[in-house]
């Protein structure tokens, strides 16, 4: 397959260049595009330096991949019907969340039951209060599920980039955590402040320093975000048998 496929890729690349470089997010009405909506519960509000992070996440995804993304993602509340409009939501914070209301629990249950994917991002990994409180509340939503560590054996770590470990504003643990349902991660826990690494000021600079790896670590955080988005859009595509020999060879060849 190799030589002919390579020729095909080159052909495709040439044809693609001929089409021009501008490519709008073009799902009908942006319907099928990736949309990193921010989930709000209780009296939480979406404010601060990280509010630019979802937009940058979308832009990085659209620039780096073929996936369409909404460049101006919004927020959604757990007790609103619009939570069910799309199958992804980002739940982030730096402090413990309030106890979920029954309507919020009900809304999240329906979101999960329909197959929605939830990313829980800890903005203050040093304290970890947000993550602990979210796990406590999600135990009411998913009493049968408990988070388990997921590393580079999981499809999230190879859905676009080949990643060896998780990364964010902080280096954090090498693995993410996830509640697995139907063999696939459905609630993903990041203790790395992923949104902190993605935040960008109006001037285009990153307002939050990434430690200890600096910009290289920020790039890894972006790649993890791209991979999470690709996982949301493609599910277990990269677990297909047809990819296995290629990915195995590349894993061995990269240090």
């Amino acid at each position, binding site marked *: 397959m*190799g030589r*002919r*496929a*390579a*020729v*095909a*890729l080159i052909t*495709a690349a*040439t*044809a*693609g*260049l001929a089409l021009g*470089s501008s*490519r709008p997010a*073009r*799902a*009908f*009405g942006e*319907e*099928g*595009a*990736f949309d990193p909506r921010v989930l709000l519960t209780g009296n939480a509000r979406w404010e601060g330096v990280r509010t630019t992070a979802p937009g940058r996440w979308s832009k990085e995804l659209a*620039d*780096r*991949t*073929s*996936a*369409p993304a909404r460049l101006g993602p919004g927020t959604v509340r757990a007790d609103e*019907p619009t939570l*069910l*409009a*799309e*199958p992804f939501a980002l739940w982030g914070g730096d402090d413990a969340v309030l106890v979920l209301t029954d309507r919020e629990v009900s809304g999240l249950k*329906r979101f999960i*039951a*329909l*197959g*929605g994917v939830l990313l829980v991002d800890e903005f203050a990994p040093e304290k970890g209060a947000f993550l602990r409180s979210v796990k406590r509340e999600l135990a009411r939503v998913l009493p049968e599920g408990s988070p388990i560590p997921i590393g580079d054996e999981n499809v999230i770590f*190879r*859905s*676009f*980039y*080949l990643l060896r470990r998780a990364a964010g504003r902080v280096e954090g643990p090498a693995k993410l955590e996830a509640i697995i349902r139907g063999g696939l991660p459905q609630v993903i826990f990041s203790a790395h402040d992923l949104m902190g690494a993605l935040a960008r000021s109006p001037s285009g600079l990153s307002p939050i320093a990434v430690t200890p790896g600096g910009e290289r670590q920020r*790039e890894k955080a972006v*790649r993890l975000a791209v991979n999470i988005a*690709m996982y*949301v*859009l*493609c*599910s*277990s*595509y*990269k677990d*297909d048998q*047809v*990819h296995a020999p*290629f*990915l195995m060879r*590349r894993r061995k*060849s990269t240090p």
Partner: protein
Amino acid sequence: MNRSFALSGDLAPPFVILACALAALSAVLLLIELWRSRRARASAFRIGASGLLAVLGLLAAVLRPVGIVSKGSLVGPKVIVLADASRSIDLPGLDGTRRQAIDRALAELDQRSGEVRYSVLAFGDGAPTPVDNVASPGESPPIAAPGKTARAPFHPRARLQSDLGAALEAIARAADERPAAVVVLSDGRLDRPAELSAGDAVKAALGALQIPIHTVSLADTAPRDASIRRVLAAGAAVAHQPFSLRIEIGCDGGLSCGDVPVVARELREKGEPTQLASGVAHIVAGRATVELPMTIERAGARILEISIQAPAGDAIPENDRRFITLDVTRDRVRVLHVAGRPTYDVRALRMWLKSDASVDVVAFFILRTPTDNVEASPDELALIPFPVDELFSEHLPSFDAVVLQDFNAEPYGLTKHLPSLARYVDKGGGLIMVGGPDAFGPGHYGGTKLAEVLPVDLSPDRKEQGTDLAGFTPRFTEAGRVAPVLAPLRALIGEDLPEIPGVDLVGDARRDTTVLLEHPTRKTASGAPMPVLALGEHGSGRTMALTIDGSHRLLFSAFAANAAGRAHGAFWDAMLGWLMRDPRFEPAVIDVRGGCVAGEDTTLTLHPLPGPQGEAVVKILRLGTGEVVATLKTPVDGSGAAREIAAGKLPAGGYSAVVEIGSGMKNGTTKSPTTRRDFACESGGEEWADSRPDEDRLRAIAAATGGVFVRAADAGQLPLPAATQVATERKVAPILPAWAWTLSAAVLLGAHWVVRRRGGLT
């Protein structure tokens, strides 16, 4: 005429016996009385004689004897003649065809019609029936047999089997007069009883009916014939998996065969058949078996043509070619899912495909375009090249269905493979095109070969057919409301559909296409509502066009939550099932009653699903040319009751019966849901496959039942049972009138009283 006598004309036998017993007792008592009185011998004799006469007179007066005059006739035994009505009787036989031999045998038997009562029945499939001669005036009359019979030539409806066992079982079970014997006229090449233990099988079929079966042979030598005697699939035929056809070749009648080439081909709706395998049969001792390994890529009823190249001098060319309908099953549905970019719609379809254990998915999604800046080296990416050439040339036949979802043909090198993708559909593959900004017209499919197989028209002008980003709610068409393929979805969501964010602009539905969903406001150039979901058939394959990219809203949305997200699975399960001709999603099932034989009347049986009403239109198309050879119509009342449709006489070959129920919907250009059934008509068929007569089997049947085996010319010599005498008239007349008997008894009693008084007895 017979004359006889009876003691009494009106008393029942027990009373006659009682009267005789009383008379005898009286006589005995008289003798005892005389012995005890010790009278002189002469006196005792007179008393005794008069007493006995008096008793007899009294007995005669009670019984009043009668004379009987009767007339009668000889009645021959019932003999059932079972004449073989299978198609093999048109093969060469004794001095002509085997059919002519039957006529001769019947003429011979007719010469003894005064001795026996014949009941001539035709046997073949199931219970025997009276000979239903079907020769029409237009047909060339069968040659009448010589002899002085007035019987019409034997020309019943041809049976596709020769099941003597079923005929004998029916006779044994019949409630009417039991036959004294059965005469079987056959060539011995029977489906039942089998060659081995034919005698025992016939005795078992007769059960308690212990009668002789005489057998009359119609042929004694095999014709000069090379034939395909049997075609067997070694194991089940499963799509995409290699299997073998075992083909038994016969060569008899002194024909010199040697090596005989054998070819297996699959018929297609249009175009030349596809050769599947070939081989050479090495004939030894008149027979050979050859295994033809092959792989059939399409499931369902596939029509295979097996042919041999017979040597010169072959007397029966009709059995050199067999058409068989092979039901190819499917282990798992192999689906190639190609998506132009990852979206929630792609995600939803992939998740459904992966969740169905009966579906084997091979997926390729374009994750990176040439303009994307990945900011990484290739080794850091989990991407593989899209093997477009390999997929759409080498591996394409191995897939049951191809899904092109929002995929632009041009940038990724698919354009050059579109003709082969169209041929793939033509040969029986399934194709689904799902909408999006890079599908249909914007995806560079307009004006291509693939556009010709899609169920909707695509303009070659991309500007003319782009996309409409305005949201809308599709609506069901009239066909969509009754189509079984949408029934599971409608059972979950009823008439409501979610709002869809946009649509690809397409033209009219193609002719013979079924539109299930349409746009509520957008019209095509012809003014018809624009199709949103259309199903079509092309060649042997099926295609589906879904011009939206929002079917995921059936899985994940506030609307979807009402049905717990199950509507998406119900929709796609039915769509893929329809594409794969799953009977659950067909509007009807059609089959050929009793099979199809070239030149014989063919009957189709239509089993519609309960619900659809109207007129069912059945078109019979000839495979290879696509020519419509017959258009048949029958009303369907919606009850689901089966309908039989006479299809007339068809020439040998493969056919496809396409059924449309409820035709004539408001939109005259599109169709109601359709279904089809491929079938084959053979010239010779199973009955001509082995042209050799089997006299040994006939001998075995006769020997096992006490019958006799003869050839047709000697049928008149069969030892049939003798006739029996049967009374037809009986006249009873009294010997004397009743008063004479009474007077005689009184006189004799009086005389006896006088003799007793004189003899000193009181």
